[in-house]
């Protein structure tokens, strides 16, 4: 009988546990979380804040999941150090636990800008159920809120506050929203949708100071303009939680470096999810892709390998799907190519009036990215063309056609016998 330890109780941690249990019902599994809740759907916290999802629907698994899978769960406990040579971890209270195989799935934390007053009461990250519960407590006394950052987290937070009838201003440093996943034409359509629905975005500005005595009263922008508000949500990106492996044998960069088997540089220690830096298929280099589906996939493969399998991970890629006020948007892989970069080709169609935009990026006839706004059908096919590296030269001109779909690629992929 072995002892498996999993640090982290979210997407990667839970899928790891489930994977281990498909192979090994007997060994001991310990899951440690520094949060105070059973695993929940982290991506739903904005829906929870908006009032669209109630607390009972935010749980990731049934309450008896841990008992049924024979898992020892430690909540509200922080691991402060990993000692790979001794195969053990040290908890905050100085107790230690030994493992045969360990998964680090510690996730990530919001980045806060280094400006005066950022620690004042009323300034929040947007990552945990605790964050949203504290934000929610302030809503009855909040008239105006500012959201720093126009990325996915910022926009989702702003959307939720808007739904709760809070006047919300989004402050964005760059010239467009979602600059990490959309090109300008796509972002423009999203921006139009936001402003039509009464969400104000201020571009080209960063907050330079949080003003107030104790409690926050206002945000000062670089331009000198002051916006009165009693709530600030920061959505300025995330940083992987890797403090506990610093100064150890485990190699880190921005995140914990993992190989094709989700192993770190220490063979019986694995990492998965937002804290892991894995090989990115479209970039051809290691990067942190902090995304729910990727965390689930990585957790699963890490778990199987911890239980003795030797399964190779295909690699990650940046991908996201979102929806604002009925407008669906999907971004896959490389979403923007610098002018005149050799070998790249962009196919696109746009109808600003109907809020439709479709763009495929090819490199030497291989799809490396796509942006879809308004109509997202075939997103899965494009994702597949990227992941399976399928040469599109024989059907490239039909990629954007209304009738394009699975039958066009059927002969090029491994097809099960559904068609006889």
């Amino acid at each position, binding site marked *: 009988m072995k002892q498996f330890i999993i640090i982290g109780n979210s997407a990667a941690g839970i899928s790891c546990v489930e994977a281990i249990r498909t192979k090994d019902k007997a060994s001991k599994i310990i899951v440690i979380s520094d949060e105070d809740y059973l695993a929940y759907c982290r991506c739903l916290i904005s829906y929870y804040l908006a009032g669209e999802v109630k607390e009972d629907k935010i749980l990731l698994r049934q309450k008896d999941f841990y008992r049924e899978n024979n898992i020892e769960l430690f909540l509200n406990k922080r691991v402060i150090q990993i000692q790979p040579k001794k195969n053990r971890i040290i908890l905050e209270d100085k107790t230690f636990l030994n493992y045969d195989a360990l998964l680090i799935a510690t996730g990530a934390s919001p980045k806060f800008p280094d400006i005066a007053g950022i620690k004042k009461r009323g300034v929040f990250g947007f990552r945990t159920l605790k964050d949203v519960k504290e934000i929610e407590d302030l809503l009855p006394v909040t008239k105006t809120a500012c959201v720093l950052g126009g990325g996915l987290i910022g926009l989702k937070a702003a959307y939720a506050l808007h739904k709760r009838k809070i006047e919300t201003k989004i402050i964005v440093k760059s010239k467009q929203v979602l600059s990490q996943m959309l090109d300008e034409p796509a972002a423009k359509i999203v921006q139009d949708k936001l402003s039509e629905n009464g969400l104000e975005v201020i571009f080209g500005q960063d907050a330079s100071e949080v003003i107030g005595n104790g409690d926050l009263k206002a945000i000062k922008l670089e331009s000198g303009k002051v916006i009165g508000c009693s709530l600030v949500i920061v959505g300025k990106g995330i940083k992987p939680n890797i403090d506990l492996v610093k100064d150890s044998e485990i190699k880190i960069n921005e995140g914990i470096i993992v190989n094709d088997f989700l192993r770190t540089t220490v063979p019986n220690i694995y990492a998965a999810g937002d804290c892991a830096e894995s090989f990115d298929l479209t970039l051809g280099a290691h990067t942190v892709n902090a995304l729910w589906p990727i965390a*689930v996939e990585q957790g699963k493969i890490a778990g199987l390998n911890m239980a003795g399998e030797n399964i190779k991970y295909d690699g990650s890629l940046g991908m996201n799907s979102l*929806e604002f006020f009925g407008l*669906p948007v999907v971004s896959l892989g490389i979403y923007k190519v610098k002018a005149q970069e050799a070998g790249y080709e962009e196919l696109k169609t746009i109808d600003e009036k109907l809020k439709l935009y479709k763009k495929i990026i090819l490199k030497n006839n291989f799809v490396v990215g796509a942006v879809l706004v308004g109509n997202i059908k075939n997103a*899965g096919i494009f994702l597949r063309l990227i992941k399976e590296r399928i040469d599109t030269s024989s059907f490239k001109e039909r990629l954007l056609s209304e009738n394009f779909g699975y*039958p066009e690629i059927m002969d090029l992929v491994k097809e099960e016998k*559904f068609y006889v």
Partner: protein
Amino acid sequence: MKNLYYDIDKCLGCKSCEIACAVAHSVSGELFKAIKEEILSLPRKKVLSSKGKNYPISCRHCKDPKCVDACMAAALIYDKEKGMVLHDETRCVGCWMCVMVCPYAAIRPNLKAKIPLRCDKCKDKDEPACVKACPTKAIIWQEEEIVSK
């Protein structure tokens, strides 16, 4: 466990299956009432053509379903006994992650209802509506093992 298979040489691309599917999943269950429903019932099956042949496309209920892994709301589960991906609409938030990862593009977003649509093999009925509707018997409803042989 029964699955849907297709005899491509018999498929005319008439889309009778699409209409039957939309009607079967409408509130009223009748064509002329269904077209007047506030949220229009959409087909969970689409017939697409390639190289002169027609291919009905719908959820295959993959054994290693990408959509279940991608679902950030835990609204999808794979039921091994039924051999089906089950969708809990009360948990679904309409984020379209499942649409994004489906390798067959067989999940359609119903933007108005904020619900992704997929074939449910007409779960309460003994035979899916598309099978009944196909005029050339191109849609085959049978046990999985028989075809894979």
